């Protein structure tokens, strides 16, 4: 009897399972579409992986190229910044030295001369004459100051400044400045030659420059041959 019951139970379970399978059987159309979709996705994921690795390698390549470009770009950037900084500092120091008319012994003196060249380069011919004249005066002042200090810091001494011997180095510098003064003067004299300037302008400049020389103490005047040469040139210009 128990065996029959057992068989009945198993049959009931088998029938139930069969019914369940029917109950939970998927729609063939759904299975077909889902299968196609799954297989396509599987293939796409492979292509995706390839595309991903390709993209990755492209990204790496582009990263390298980008880093190269960035490095070059950075080099240019730093170079530009350095150039701008140097230019700004140079121009700043030149303007400062020129505006303060620093003496020949000042560390920024060369910047002053540079600024003078720039000003001459940027000026009109008429303004250039005035600038050369002004610079000629500057050279004389620089010589006077250099001779006053003898190129060295002032020292406590009972000897007068003019009696002290001028060191060789300062003398060379004084000679250079006198030469520069002569050059500035000659440049003006060249430029005020007829017919570039009116006779009264030429006379005015010559009188001005000769008065400046004459008004200086004897020990601060340019060398006599130089002064004589300037006087001759002024005479020539005035006679023309």
């Amino acid at each position, binding site marked *: 009897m128990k065996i029959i019951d057992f068989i009945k139970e198993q049959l*009931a379970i088998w*029938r139930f399972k069969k019914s369940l399978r029917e*109950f*939970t059987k*998927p729609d063939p159309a759904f299975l077909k579409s889902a299968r196609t979709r799954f297989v396509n996705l599987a293939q796409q994921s492979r292509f995706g992986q390839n595309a991903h690795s390709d993209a990755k390698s492209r990204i790496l390549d582009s990263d390298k190229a980008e880093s190269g470009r960035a490095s070059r770009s950075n080099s240019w950037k730093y170079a530009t910044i350095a150039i701008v900084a140097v230019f700004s500092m140079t121009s700043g120091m030149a303007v400062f030295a020129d505006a303060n008319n620093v003496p020949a012994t000042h560390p920024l003196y060369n910047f002053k001369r540079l600024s003078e060249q720039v000003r001459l380069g940027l000026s009109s011919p008429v303004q250039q004459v005035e600038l050369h004249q002004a610079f000629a005066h500057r050279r004389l002042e620089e010589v006077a100051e250099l001779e006053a200090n003898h190129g060295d810091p002032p020292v406590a001494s009972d000897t007068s400044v003019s009696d002290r011997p001028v060191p060789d180095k300062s003398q060379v510098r004084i000679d250079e400045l006198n030469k520069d003064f002569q050059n500035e003067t000659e440049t003006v004299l060249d430029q005020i030659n007829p017919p570039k300037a009116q006779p009264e302008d030429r006379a005015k400049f010559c009188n001005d420059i000769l008065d400046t020389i004459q008004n200086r103490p004897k020990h601060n005047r340019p060398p006599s041959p130089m002064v004589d040469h300037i006087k001759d040139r002024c005479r020539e210009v005035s006679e023309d």
Partner: protein
Amino acid sequence: MAIKDQFNVLAEALQKGDSGSAEKIFDHFSKPIYAFFMARIRHKETAQDLTQEVFLKVIKSIDQFDRKSGDFTAWIWQIARNSAIDYFRHKKPSYLADLPDEGNNINEELVKSDESAKVREIMSIVESFPAEEQELFQMHFVTDMPYTDIAQITGKTESALRVAIHRLRKKLIPYLK
């Protein structure tokens, strides 16, 4: 063990994008997974959506599959199980009430039959069982999953499973007669 090894190999081929492996995996698992959802949710479209979701997750996560960590069969069933859990976790309370007639979502030929009525009746009874027994019912009765796979998925020993399923049978038999 040999079957599981077979799917491990297919899964590794799927990792490389082998469409033949994808077809074999789908053909083997699609019906039981759909049945698993259908038995649990009893809504055709939802079961279809969840089945597709499982295979979508398989594609998305196949790179993470490692046969050293477990067999593919257990792995894919774990995905299905988690999908069902997620579905019930996020399901709106009014969802089933919104359905016009759940029976219409089931095989229409079966709706009117006595067998279908019996099945629906028993499934409703199973719903009153503890969650563990419901899951065992779905895995053993609905999907015909081997004990070894159920053991792997549920984390129980095979002998413990046999005892649990025997008890479940005993519980169901009065309703089956």
